[in-house]
């Protein structure tokens, strides 16, 4: 059996047995939802519906209903796309990269983080599919023969790389998530009393039985998928950044973009995981599994990635000055002091200054502070994408094309709609799916459970 040092803090608190873990994880599914769940769901669904209305209006009328204009032709659509897809990255980082590094603390959070990834990528996809202008022709994005209406797609274009990267990322994340869910669905199925629930979880669990051969394949599949997802997740946001970096627009044409975007993605993603899990652990009483230690680990990731982002911002400023290119210098001066200086200030405060507060152990183990910070970070990361896109495009080479950007009611509606959709899906997920990978968690109970650790310590003392 795996041994873990006694001085390492336990990952499962209290005196839990295997059966108790089952009971705790299955409780939200078998029990009745409380009124907070219904309130949150109602609010989310209303936002979602508003978004669908604005979406339908956009499709019916055209993207002229957005605030985007001839100068600022990418605005909230791409800001929101990059923001959502960045949020998704934390899920893969937790489930794949932490699996490769054998970080056991991932087991309590990987399931909901992966769910977050999938829903976030769905939200992101809405924006890219819509911003093409005629979404009913979106199949032109795929390499189809010429008689479908266009030439072959252009494989030199990073926008096409994005099509392949995002669709691969979404589908691989989906099967990774689902394959991990199957044993847990089987657990719910084997306990279900109501015939309908038994039937549904029976269908979802694909007949999983947990035989030794299947577990052996399951572990190999998880490991190989983690190995595949790790370079995949880095490639996705690198390619997203190349949408900008391969252009000749000053302020975008920089080689620092891929690592800086990936770090920013992980930064915002971990913040979103914290926002969701701090609610989930409270509402579903999962404090024994998603412990303060887990929160602290995630906050440490936030300090690291937030600092990388901060260094990237400063490097960008330095290089633009050092380049001696006046357009490049102006692009950054304009970001910091131009008409959108407030967006730049918000970005700097939320992303560079605020995560440094987590150096204090008191603050990074304070749940309320962490919750507020998680929202601050996501606001900051939204502004980062806004700053990259809008202030850059509103002041390009020809001053006669300079103009401001103002979002319309529809822009705001679609963005709110995706937030509504995200939370609707997440709330449904947390109510009907096992939110913690209980099978994995049981396998570390003896090594990382509080009770087992205490026993190991007292056994040492007696010797």
């Amino acid at each position: 059996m795996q041994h873990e040092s006694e001085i390492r803090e336990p990952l499962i608190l209290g005196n839990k047995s295997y059966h108790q873990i089952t009971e705790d994880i299955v409780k939200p599914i078998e029990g009745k939802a409380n009124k907070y769940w219904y309130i949150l769901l109602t609010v989310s669904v209303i936002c979602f519906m508003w978004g669908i209305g604005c979406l339908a209006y956009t499709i019916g009328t055209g993207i002229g209903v957005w605030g985007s204009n001839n100068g600022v032709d990418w605005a909230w659509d791409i800001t929101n796309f990059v923001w959502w897809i960045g949020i998704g990255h934390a899920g893969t980082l937790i489930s794949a990269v932490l699996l490769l590094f054998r970080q056991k603390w991932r087991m309590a959070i990987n399931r909901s983080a992966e769910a977050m990834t999938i829903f976030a990528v769905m939200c992101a996809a809405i924006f890219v599919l819509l911003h093409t202008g005629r979404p009913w022709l979106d199949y032109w994005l795929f390499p189809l023969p010429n008689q479908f209406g266009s030439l072959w797609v252009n494989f030199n274009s990073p926008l096409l790389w994005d099509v392949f990267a995002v669709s691969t990322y979404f589908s691989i994340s989906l099967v990774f998530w689902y394959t991990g869910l199957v044993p847990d669905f089987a657990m719910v199925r084997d306990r279900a009393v109501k015939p309908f629930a038994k039937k549904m979880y029976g269908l979802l669990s694909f007949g999983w039985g947990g035989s030794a051969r299947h577990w052996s394949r399951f572990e190999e599949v998880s490991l190989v998928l983690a190995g595949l997802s790790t370079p995949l997740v880095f490639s996705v946001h690198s390619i997203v950044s190349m949408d900008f970096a391969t252009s000749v627009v000053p302020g975008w044409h920089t080689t620092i973009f891929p690592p800086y975007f990936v770090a920013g993605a992980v930064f915002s993603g971990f913040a979103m995981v914290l926002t969701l899990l701090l609610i989930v652990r409270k509402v579903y009483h999962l404090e024994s599994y998603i412990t303060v230690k887990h929160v602290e680990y995630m906050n440490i990731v936030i300090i690291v990635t937030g600092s990388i982002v901060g260094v990237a911002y400063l490097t960008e400023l330095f290089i633009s000055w050092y380049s001696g290119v006046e357009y490049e210098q102006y692009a950054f001066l304009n970001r910091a002091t131009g008409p959108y200086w407030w967006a730049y200030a918000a970005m700097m405060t939320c992303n560079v200054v605020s995560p440094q507060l987590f150096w204090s152990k008191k603050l990074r183990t304070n749940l309320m502070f962490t919750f507020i910070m998680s929202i601050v970070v996501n606001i900051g990361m939204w502004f980062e994408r806004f700053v990259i896109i809008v202030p850059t495009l509103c002041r390009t080479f020809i001053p006669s094309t300079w103009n401001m950007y103002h979002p319309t009611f529809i822009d705001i509606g679609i963005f709110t709609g995706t937030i509504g959709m995200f939370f609707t899906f997440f709330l449904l997920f947390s109510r009907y799916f096992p939110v913690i990978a209980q099978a994995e968690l049981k396998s570390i109970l003896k090594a990382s459970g509080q009770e087992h650790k205490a026993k190991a310590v007292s056994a040492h003392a007696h010797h």
Partner: protein
Amino acid sequence: MSTVAIHAIYDDEVPLLETANTLKSQGIKVKDVFSPFPIHGLDAAIGVPRTWIAICAFIYGLTGMLLATLMMWYMMVSDWPTDIGGKPSMAYFMNVPAFIPITFESTVLCAGHGMVITYYLRCWMLPGVKAKNPDPRTTDDKFLMIVETKEENKSKIESLLRNGGASEISFK
């Protein structure tokens, strides 16, 4: 001579693993074990061979890489070469840096999905398949070991299992 399947339930994975090793040392074959989570070290004890699924994934990945290369060569170089941004598509090797991202994505796509499909088919896990575990408690907190044996060895194995810590024994 009739055979009998002995179903032994354990409450913990440690005695089960010890019993499996005892049975192995006596040359008795364990048919299968059903457990709520993977038990490390069990595969060697009950003779589960290392799965080939990672090698399958590698082959699917190579296929994906080849398909993407062929696709981009055909569309960009062979079928309809275009001069985009002053960068004409003369030969595949000249454009290859621009093709790397999609080659990589296609490799991952085919390796991942090919492997997962193989996994589900090899384990025969599909929507609508009947639950494979003989006892529903094995997805919760019980561990089931199945030994198939001839009628004459039944009592000997039964005592081995019981001494190993089995909490319930039944014959099927």
